[in-house]
């Protein structure tokens, strides 16, 4: 404060070029900016945390349905996307590095690379979503690709009404012709884990493989056998969570790309230098945060439970 008080009487006040008038000095400005950004990131963590809680509750209740859902996701695409995001995090970190060292051209190059990797991520995500759309795995009725087999009426029974589609697939290897005239959610991979568990329980009657929740969630209470429709509803929960989490994450990527576009323009004008680079660093924090969310999404959605089905 002492400095400030004397400076009022001076005619020419030395001002660091990047200093906003409400701050004492650059150090205070940088700390205020970064604590503000971190507060934003903390609320983002809580925001994603709500969805992770949903995931936690449902996965805990229906591990078998979630394992089968996880196993269906395209793990190669998820893996590639993880690597793409990690590379983009590296180029983002280097953007900050070069901004702090007054290297404008390197900085621009790194921003462009970061954006390219971000776009690659979104493109792969689009391919994945398209795959789900074609397979009838979007959990909203009517949002899937509508497939009408020749000779079938539009008023053909819904797959869960016939009930026998998935059950017949369990035995035979041959692909059943795909019929989805209304674009319904469909699960055509059966319920191998549940029927395996039932067989195991039958072999040793003292052993409880299925939890109480799973028993109530998957089985027909009268027959004690797998109810394919009930099971499909649990798979549907998995795909809801998958689309909500990855969709929200993709939205963050799109916002991040918007930030990058703005950074690119500013960097092009030469706004950032070793004195003033806070916007670069703060955008970097955001970008790394989005990367961290994916670091957790990848194992949780794509990998957990995969070992159960890896053998057979």
């Amino acid at each position: 404060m002492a400095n400030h008080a004397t400076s009022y009487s001076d005619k020419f006040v030395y001002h660091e070029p990047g200093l906003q008038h409400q701050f004492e000095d650059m150090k205070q400005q940088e700390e205020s900016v970064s604590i503000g950004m971190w507060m934003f990131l903390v609320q983002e963590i809580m925001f994603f945390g709500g969805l992770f809680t949903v995931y936690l509750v449902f996965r805990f209740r229906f591990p078998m349905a979630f394992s089968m859902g996880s196993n269906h996701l395209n793990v190669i695409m998820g893996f590639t996307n993880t690597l793409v995001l990690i590379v983009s995090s590296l180029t983002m970190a280097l953007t900050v590095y070069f901004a702090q060292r007054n290297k404008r051209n390197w900085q621009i190059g790194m921003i462009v690379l970061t954006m390219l990797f971000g776009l690659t991520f979104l493109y792969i995500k689009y391919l994945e979503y398209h795959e789900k759309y074609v397979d009838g795995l979007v959990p909203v009725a009517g949002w899937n690709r509508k497939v009408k087999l020749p000779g079938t009426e539009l008023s053909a029974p819904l797959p869960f009404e016939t009930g026998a589609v998935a059950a017949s697939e369990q035995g035979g290897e041959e692909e059943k012709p795909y019929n989805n005239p209304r674009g319904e959610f469909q699960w055509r991979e059966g319920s191998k884990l549940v029927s395996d568990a039932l067989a195991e329980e039958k072999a040793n009657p003292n052993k409880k493989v299925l939890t109480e929740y799973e028993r109530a969630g998957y089985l027909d209470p009268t027959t004690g056998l797998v109810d394919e429709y009930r099971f499909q509803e649990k798979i549907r929960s998995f795909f809801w969570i998958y689309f909500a989490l990855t969709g929200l994450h993709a939205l963050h990527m799109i916002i991040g790309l918007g930030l990058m576009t703005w950074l690119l323009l500013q960097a092009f004008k030469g706004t950032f230098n070793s004195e003033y680079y806070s916007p670069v660093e703060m955008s970097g924090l955001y970008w790394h945060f989005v990367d961290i969310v994916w670091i957790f999404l990848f194992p949780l959605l794509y990998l957990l439970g995969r070992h159960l089905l890896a053998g057979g």
Partner: protein
Amino acid sequence: MAEPHIESQHMHIGIPGYLVVFGILVVGTILTFVVALQDLDWIFPGANTFVALAIAFTKMSCVMLFFMHVRWSPKLIWLAAICSFFWLSIMFSFTMQDYLTRGLGVFST
């Protein structure tokens, strides 16, 4: 240790350091993928989940400490970063202490 922030205003690990962190992240990603295909239930039930989360936490720590420069940030930033996980753990544990202790009933499925 006296006034580390002033001395290290632009401090970080430099390009070689960034590449090492990047290498750790890539190795972690490959490792988590390979481990997920092995059945680790012989160690203890749910070992696969534990290992996957342990790797994810390690990767996250690397990103936060070095890419996000928390390592050289003031204590207030450390506090914010750690508190976020504290609050997150409250959300998880308070939710689960309800769900884990419910029997089958109206709200069970």
